């Protein structure tokens, strides 16, 4: 084997590498709107993403394309959506990279939000840098308030811990709750809510007898639940993620923990929560949210029916509707701006009011001020709005009925 052959092989390798690097990107003509998303299709976040966001994204794209697309005045016609969906594997590093790929390589016109507070916070600077509006339905973070000025392209659909906390404290006062056990998942969601609500409870004269955090996906919480049972508190207040929400519900029944108010967080509003345990067992369980087809906002009932028809399952009673409302908001902002210029669309988003299935969405700073309700309670198989008081679709049932 002579050297010339060896080096020619080497040259082949180098050329192949160069080809890979210089791979040309696709040119886009404007006969469609390219929309991309990097979202958890696998891993621990995929349960939540697959419940609240992915089905709504898919359904919305289908609906818009069935209408012929989004009307853009600048082009004098409706532009259909072409949709790219990547899997973040529930890994934030991957999410960041894929968002960069969507922006820089796929050159999408708009991005749909990833799932969860942490991931949204991680990609927010990139959205911002390249001027892509991020209308997040599953972000709740008070920390964002101080950062709001730095993220003009970030818009948050969901209730913030402050609003959520105020509603909970108000409801607890009304129900005569004196002593609570506050537990939370060791994730941004649980920590931020605890930080806001614990002092608010103190101000209202409600005592936090037990305060405890646990890592997401803890396999057994019975020791903690037994301790709470022994403390005979009036309310269990849990800022939890879906795996914990399901686990605590199951184990509370086993250890016989049944306080007057039983409140857990992400997951309670899922139809699969009712589906797994049955309407009788979840009767009286409270959770954040809330949205149901009976809220007095135009399109709510129709959205619910379309979702059931398309996916053969109900949307969850919280963030699903917000995810869909976020998409409605984006669509209206594009049509109002009459252009695909994202800077102009951002200005429309920042100032406009957008009728959606959760009511008229309006952003104050980056935060949507509209919500159809803050606290929900399962009653007869529907997640009814019980707080705030003026938004009620039903009266709260307290004390919670015993476990069946």
């Amino acid at each position: 084997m002579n050297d010339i052959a060896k080096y020619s092989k080497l040259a082949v390798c180098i050329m192949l590498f160069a080809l890979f690097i210089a791979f040309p990107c696709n040119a886009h003509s404007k006969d469609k709107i390219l929309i991309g998303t990097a979202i958890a299709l696998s891993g621990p976040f995929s349960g939540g993403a697959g419940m609240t966001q992915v089905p709504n994204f898919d359904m919305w794209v289908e609906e818009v394309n069935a209408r012929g697309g989004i009307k853009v005045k600048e082009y004098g016609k409706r532009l259909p959506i072409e949709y790219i969906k990547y899997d973040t594997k529930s890994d934030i590093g991957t999410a960041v990279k894929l968002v960069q790929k969507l922006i820089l390589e796929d050159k999408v016109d708009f991005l749909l939000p990833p799932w969860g507070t942490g991931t949204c916070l991680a990609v927010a600077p990139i959205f911002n840098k390249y001027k892509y509006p991020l209308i997040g339905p599953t972000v709740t973070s008070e920390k964002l308030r101080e950062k709001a000025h730095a993220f003009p392209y970030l818009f948050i659909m969901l209730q913030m811990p402050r609003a959520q906390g105020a509603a909970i404290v108000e409801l607890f006062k009304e129900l005569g709750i004196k002593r609570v056990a506050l537990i939370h998942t060791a994730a941004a969601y649980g920590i931020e809510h605890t930080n806001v609500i614990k002092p608010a409870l103190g101000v209202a004269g409600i005592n936090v007898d037990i305060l405890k955090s646990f890592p997401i996906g803890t396999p057994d919480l019975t020791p903690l639940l037994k301790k709470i049972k022994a403390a005979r508190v009036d309310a269990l207040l849990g800022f939890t993620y879906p795996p914990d929400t399901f686990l605590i519900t199951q184990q509370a029944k086993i250890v016989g923990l049944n306080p007057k108010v039983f409140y857990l967080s992400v997951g309670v509003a899922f139809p699969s929560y009712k589906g797994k345990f049955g309407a009788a067992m979840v009767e009286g369980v409270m959770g954040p949210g809330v949205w149901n087809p009976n809220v007095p906002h135009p399109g709510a009932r129709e959205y619910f029916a379309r979702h059931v028809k398309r996916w053969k399952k109900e949307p969850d009673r919280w963030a699903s509707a917000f995810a869909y409302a976020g998409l409605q908001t984006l669509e209206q902002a594009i049509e109002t701006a009459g252009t695909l210029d994202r800077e102009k669309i951002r200005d429309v988003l920042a100032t406009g009011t957008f009728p959606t299935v959760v009511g008229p969405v309006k952003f104050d700073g980056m935060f949507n001020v509209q919500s159809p309700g803050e606290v929900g309670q399962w009653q007869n198989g529907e997640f009814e709005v019980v707080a705030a008081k003026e938004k009620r679709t039903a009266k709260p049932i307290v004390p919670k009925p015993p476990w069946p």
Partner: protein
Amino acid sequence: MHSFRVTSNKKALFLALLIVILIFAATMPLYIQPYIIISLTSIFMYIVLTVSWAIFSAPTRYISLASASFFGTGIYVWAILGSALPLPIVVGIGGLVSSLLALLTGLLTLRLRGLYFIIFTFGFSEFVRHSSQWWEINISGTEGRWVVGVDHTIIYYAMLILAFLTLITAYAIRRSRFGLALQSIGQFEEAAAHAGINVTAMKIMTFAISAFFMGAAGAIMATRWSYIDPSIAFSPLISFMPVLMAIFGGIGQLYGHILGAGVLTILAEVLLTEFPYYYMLLFGLILLAVILFLPHGLVGLMEKWWKGGLAGKHANT
């Protein structure tokens, strides 16, 4: 394992080639699309992780699954100091802090062998992750931190330089008496000890050197992630990927580590974006195939090709 001696003529050619590659890499951001620069940065990151992992684990045959703890330490160094000090200094500190951590754990663990060592290092990674989570929640009162971001071109250059330094170090160690001593530890530790090698000191020192580069890589990558929390910073994936990449490329050769890191990073991304629903399945199948059919990794395959085609593969054995 080299089948031919490197003559001075070839050495010169090799050097020239290296310089060409370096110049090419250094000028790349001028004419290449930004996303490819970002992808190359990931490849460089995995090259740093794989090569630095192999500095310790390949010759000594102590499989370490602690990479995530060193990488994550670097990330947190940036998160804490990134806004106060310039990038190269923070990266250096990130490396040093990780080294220090490796020294401490090395003192505790490097008397363990085989499976015990593997399990301990993995447990150590998880321990670091959970303790920092506990710290963040109970002491800092938060979970994640915003970190100061840096332009992707700067991240590219920083990672390129670090990758280069890692390669030089790895090469120098392999070629030195130090490297020989490490190999003798891997082959027969008692014999090495009896030959007068201070095996514990050697192992700890090498472990710390390897951790330095991982920590530095973490400090650089933190600038790209802009938001971190303990589960991002200490992701167990970072512990496993270097092992997989080294095996994939070929654990015996330095260029095997580079090849493994490069090919596997590209492969993972292509699979992830083209087949989002079958990503894990395909990735696993490919890894399985390589381990079953290419015991010497990609390098083994390439060497056969190099030496005269795959058809005559029985001639050489």
